[in-house]
């Protein structure tokens, strides 16, 4: 079972829900797909070991063969190739690695090579039997999606995989939540929370993934998020109250199920409910 934890707005509590859910469940995989700002391990403190570089393919020119015909420049949709008076210049950070320039070159002057843009790390906790897989995008690199996609190839289908997604609604979010069995949208009961929740709902509906909402910091703001969910017939699967103790534990990097064990059962119940939704969908 693959569960994505997402939200339109940042800072609503995705990582909190992902980490606490994993700890409450045990025997789970946790994938930190927020590769621009991976934070799960700040709460887990696992010893991480790098196991793979993430690379994308970029072109390399053989100047001996190049006749400066400029076909590669004309073909590139990303403006990643430019023609200078005496050479061809590549802009690796604009390159999407499609291989088009090498394909169109009539002189076979373009080779491809790998360029690292991020890394994958892994950590295991024997007590709870949790495997953390974390992707990190290198500083100054623009493209998060290849890191997310490569990380997701390590999802273990035989267990529960919890995916901590990046905020927003753009391509890194799609890369994280597409192909999931269920998506939990974490929001807060504020106007910003509501606005960004409704954007996230549009995304998840287009991807046709069953989903439900977790309201974090319940008790602040107003009731408009709940009214919205009611109107849209979206199940609210959990409410986490605004609680100073939870906020302080969060600031220190302590998952609150560890200090407030009564919440473990709440998260297990959440998981059972998700399971029901998925089975219900499979039946009908």
């Amino acid at each position, binding site marked *: 079972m693959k569960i994505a934890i997402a939200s*339109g707005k940042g800072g*609503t509590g995705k990582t909190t829900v992902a980490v606490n859910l994993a700890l409450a469940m045990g025997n789970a995989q946790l994938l930190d797909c927020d590769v*621009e*700002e991976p934070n799960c391990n700040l709460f887990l403190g696992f010893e991480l070991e790098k196991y793979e570089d993430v690379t994308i393919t970029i072109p390399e020119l053989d100047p001996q063969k190049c006749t400066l015909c400029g076909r590669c420049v004309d073909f590139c949709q990303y403006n990643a190739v430019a023609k200078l008076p005496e050479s061809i210049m590549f802009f690796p950070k604009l390159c999407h690695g499609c291989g*088009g320039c090498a394909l169109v070159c009539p002189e076979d002057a373009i080779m491809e090579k790998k360029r690292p843009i991020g890394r994958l790390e892994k950590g295991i906790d024997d007590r709870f039997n949790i495997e953390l897989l974390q992707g990190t995008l290198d500083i*100054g690199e623009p493209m998060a999606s290849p890191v997310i996609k490569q990380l997701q190839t390590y999802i273990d289908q035989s267990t529960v995989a919890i995916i901590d997604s990046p905020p927003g609604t753009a391509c890194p979010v799609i890369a994280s939540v597409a192909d999931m069995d269920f998506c939990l949208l974490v929001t807060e009961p504020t*106007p910003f929370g509501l*606005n960004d929740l409704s954007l996230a709902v549009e995304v998840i509906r287009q991807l046709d993934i069953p989903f439900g909402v977790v309201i974090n910091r319940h008790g602040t703001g107003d009731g408009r998020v709940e009214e919205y969910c009611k109107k849209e017939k979206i199940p609210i699967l959990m409410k986490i109250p605004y609680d100073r103790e939870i906020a302080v534990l969060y*600031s220190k990097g302590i998952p609150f199920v560890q200090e407030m064990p009564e919440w473990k059962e709440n998260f297990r119940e959440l998981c059972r409910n998700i399971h029901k939704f998925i089975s219900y969908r499979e039946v009908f």
Partner: protein
Amino acid sequence: MVFQITVISGKGGTGKTTVTSSFAALADDAVVADCDVDAADMHLILSPDTFETNDFYGLKVAHINKELCTNCGLCADHCRFDAIDPHNVVDTFKCEGCAVCEYICPEDAVQMIDKKAGEYYCSNTRFGPMVHAKLGIGEEASGKLVSCVRRRASGLAEENGKDMIIIDGPPGTGCSVIAAITGVDLVLIVTEPTISGIHDLERVVSVARHFNIDVMVCINKYDINSELSDSITEYCKKNGISIAGKIPYDKVTVEAMVEGKTVVEYSDHKLSSQIRSIWDEVVSSVK
């Protein structure tokens, strides 16, 4: 000369938009640009009255003409984005518009078509002009849309004789953040005293420095963990980053948001004077 300031945070939810919208209220002569294009919120506070709507075209997307297609599979073999399924149908979410399939198709069955990927708007607000946008769901080119918003904001600044552009940036460190900070005069990072806040602050400082942009830091909700606030201060000192100010945690920020107001309009609270002094620091550092 038009000065440009971008407010970012690395981590989401630290209070970027709360700070930026107050800056919009405090600035005399600024254009506001909401560059958090895939989860834009500033309009909820500034209630823009839109006078210009522009379509945004991102990357093209492949379309396979079934009548010409012989199912040879060459396009799928060459697609690096896994965007063509075994029935030769293009997954528009996965297609990155590279046009390799169009080139390789022996039957000329593939055509690259324009796809509207969002809109961007010019509006009037009670504080002056604003440029904002809406990115289509799951679109690829968020960085490109950020650049469109910034270009239009520069145009508006020139047309209206404004000397400053205040940019609300997106969370993260990737393409849209890079597009929101390149070439600006100052990046103000709003952080919070949590271990996630600090971790993300450090990453986003590295991004700004990677592009040689001056950085200042503002610590929001500084009193929720004073020990970690001290660590942030220390980190900034060690790295030669000046701190523009600190804002206490206060539920006034949420109350103001619920009312659709900026914090500085909503109350004469201590909070407002803190934000004012941060604004003064920011202005004096760029001008």
